[in-house]
């Protein structure tokens, strides 16, 4: 399946959902490697239909313009506590402002580096937001095409979800 970009006809390109998803996966690995020093493994790739994820802290950032959609970075609380400990030296026991801050920063960096790596002009990123609450669920509109990347690492699991808005009429 291809994604037609909302660009002028003379600049139109087609990209597959696979290429977009691979870019987000690669950038996620780089962010965790460079900022946390963590080696993360892509354990599973899935589609949204029929799948529900529940996590504890989620960073959400939208992108618009040439490509429209939303990136969600969802983490288990324990994983975020370990991440905060690596920066601050002390490990939280609950979802603190530092935990929220960290997830927001990770989401911003994954979104920003993915946007740069895609190399498509006209993509704008929104401001990241963070949702916290044990066992919450983030849902996309039924019309969105959603790619889900399950990662695992020593500190615990987390998920990257990318919801793409399908081009008008396609």
């Amino acid at each position, binding site marked *: 399946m291809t994604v037609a970009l909302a660009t002028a006809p003379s600049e139109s390109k087609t990209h597959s959902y696979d290429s977009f998803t691979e870019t987000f996966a690669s950038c996620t690995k*780089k*962010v965790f490697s*460079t*900022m946390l*020093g963590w080696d993360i493994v892509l354990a599973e790739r899935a589609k949204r239909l029929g799948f529900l994820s529940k996590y504890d802290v989620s960073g959400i950032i939208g992108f618009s313009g040439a490509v429209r959609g939303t990136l969600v970075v969802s983490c288990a609380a324990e994983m975020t506590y370990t991440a*905060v400990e690596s*920066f*601050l030296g002390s490990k939280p026991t609950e979802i603190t*402002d*530092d935990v929220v*801050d*960290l997830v*927001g*920063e990770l989401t*911003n*960096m994954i*979104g*920003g*580096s993915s946007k*740069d790596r895609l190399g498509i002009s006209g993509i704008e990123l929104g*401001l990241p937001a963070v949702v916290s609450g044990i066992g919450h669920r983030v849902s996309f509109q039924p019309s969105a095409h959603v790619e889900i990347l399950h990662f695992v690492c020593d500190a615990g699991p987390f998920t990257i979800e990318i919801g793409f808005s399908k081009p008008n009429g396609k």
Partner: protein
Amino acid sequence: MKVLVADDSGVMRKIIIRALNSVGVTDTLEAANGQEAIDAFKANPVDMILTDWNMPEKSGLDVVLEVRATGSEIPIIMVTTEAQKSQVIAAIQAGVSDYLTKPFDSDDLRAKIDKFVAV
């Protein structure tokens, strides 16, 4: 030397300060937004500024413009995810000394600082 670190993320300020500490820079000031950064610069004799691009009150670019308007030539390094070419050009024209894109590790930051600091 004294370094001013401006970023609306408390975690990112801590990351940057930890990296500064690793290269021997232990005298640091923190600012959580652009206006705080400008106020801190005017109130304290800082030797370098590390600033994020997107911040509340005033942006990192605003910080650069106002610092340079005083005649100061201290090194200013922009730390940001916004690596678009047009924004880099705007930052350089405003007087940014160097540019560091997130994500970065301590070695990346150390290399940028070493260009301007003899510690």
